[in-house]
């Protein structure tokens, strides 16, 4: 409810936004599972990620919302789509393999459901309001990055140089041949 207090919005407004975003998320995920074409599935997943980013925004965590869009909806989805483009997914699985995957995914789904229920029953009683402590604010994060975590932050720049040089070295190979 922090957002409402901050921007002086009616309480109902936030609830209304939440339900719209939640419906978008669940609907997009359902559509992702039900579409046959994997490229469309990937696009539906992007929509679901955007919905989740919106929910983070409602919780007054703008930084996490931005990261959600940049990393998940941006970088990771590009990877997904690259893979879909590179391998031939049209062919699909052979019928006997399909039976196996159906069985296995059903089983794993049940296991996950059980795990989620046990985890959730323990946690629901302890749920508190989140978002009051400015968890995801860019200012707080930036302050931490440049004080307590300055050294890891600087090392990341070395890491990026190494990754860039390495990627160029490996990718350049083909031009020379």
């Amino acid at each position, binding site marked *: 409810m922090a957002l409402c207090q901050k921007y002086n919005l009616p309480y109902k407004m936030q609830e209304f936004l939440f339900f719209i975003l939640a419906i978008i998320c669940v609907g997009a995920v359902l559509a992702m599972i039900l579409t046959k074409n994997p490229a469309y599935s990937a696009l539906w997943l992007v929509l679901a990620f955007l919905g989740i980013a919106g929910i983070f925004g409602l919780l007054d965590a703008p930084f996490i919302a931005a990261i959600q869009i940049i990393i998940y909806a941006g970088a990771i989805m590009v990877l997904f789509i690259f893979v879909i483009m590179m391998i031939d997914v049209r062919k699909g699985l052979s019928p006997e393999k399909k039976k196996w995957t159906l069985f296995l995914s059903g089983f794993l789904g049940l296991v996950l459901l059980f795990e989620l229920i046990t985890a959730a029953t323990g946690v629901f009683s302890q749920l508190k309001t989140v978002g009051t402590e400015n968890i995801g604010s860019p200012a707080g994060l930036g302050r931490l990055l440049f004080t307590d975590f300055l050294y890891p932050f600087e090392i990341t720049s070395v890491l990026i140089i190494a990754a860039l040089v*390495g*990627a160029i070295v490996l990718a350049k190979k083909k031009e020379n041949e």
Partner: protein
Amino acid sequence: MNSLYALAPLSIIVLASIIILLLEVFLKKENKNYLGYISVFFLTACFIFCFMSWGKDYSYFNGSLLLDNFALFFFMILTIGTLLIILMSLNYISLMDANHGEFFALLLLALSGMFIMISSTDFLVIFLGLEVLSISSYALAGLKKKDEQSSEASVKYFLLGSFASAFLVFGLAFLFGAFKTTDILGIIDGFNKPTELGLLAIFGLGMVIISFAFKIAFVPFHMWTPDVYQGSPTPVTAFFSVGPKAVGFVVLIRILYPYWHSLFDSNVLFTILWIVSALTMIFGNLIALRQTNVKRILAYSSIAHAGYILVGILAMDNASCVFYLTVYLFMNIGAFTAITAMTKKGKEYVELEDYAGAGFNHPWIGAAFAVFLFSLAGFPPLGGFLAKFYVFAAAVKEGLISLVVIGILASLVSVYYYLRIVVFMYMHRSAGKLDIQQENPALLIVLFLCLYGVLQLGIFPGNILVFIRDAVGSLPF
């Protein structure tokens, strides 16, 4: 002492790699060797700085960068190792159609990753250092153009290395969940206080150790080693066999040494590491018997050596481990230098048959190679003998008799495959197809320096041992 000087070695190395990348663009193809000399200059500067700051305990960033003597000692030997590898590869790079600038820059970046890992007790920093090291290593492994094995090595190393990193992060998440800190000392403190989160923490610690076992190549996690070592360019193989291994052991010592002394019951971990050590010594040596590729033989031998060093860790004698790593650096780089020498344009001689008669046709390289192999096998008066002796003596003192028996039997087995190379070099008739173009002065200097190191450490180890005791003494427990 809180001082900006603590950043100097790391900055020197990163600066050197950036300068080399810039100069690469402007230098003409026939002048590319200058890049090697420039990196040697910076490495020497780094070495001198480390030597000057011995005992000063510089630290910065609230202690997450800490140059205690232990870190400085490894800074110095890894700097020497990288310097030797750069010198030995000056000619090799052009023979293999690779680019000097990229090779040296990536090697220096990998070295900076190792520096980061060695000089910190914060797991977050150690993880980032590991990533810097690994990402440069993946590129280094695939540096040989138009070579399928090299690309295979790169991909394999990348996939398994990513798994290892994932294990580390996973374990870190558990440790952080249990103790709310990523600092090694905080984690050890947490282990000393019994909590209901103990199981969670043990699981996390196990994951962390598994990830380093990947990097060091202990036996259930060694599968990538032979393929990666075989496919990578030979100087890079020398680097892989020495650098990541030493760093992995540094982190293991930093975690495990206080842990052995803690109140927490460490029997389970001890037993598991005991078994891992025995398996590593047995399997590494037995599988090496059947190899015919010299690089693969040395790959399995490096696995076996990791097992011997783990005996030292189990015996809680860090000085002997550090001494072993120092000797191992010289003898292994020396052996790989000899293999690097057996190269001509676009072709490496790595099969055992290629070495027939090499001892007579190329007396200097052959003799030096034989000495390094004798040292690896552990013959006195060479460094390899003393290293094994210290490790096993420490283990006997701690009562790990059966482990020592396994170790000695395993190293007896190893004599066979080391001597097999020597037999091929000196007792087989030359087939006359070995025409190498590699007898350049830089390579001979490296051979000479490694020979000097192996003999000095084997005959007069006193000076170095004083340094090592000083270094180990600076550990916080």
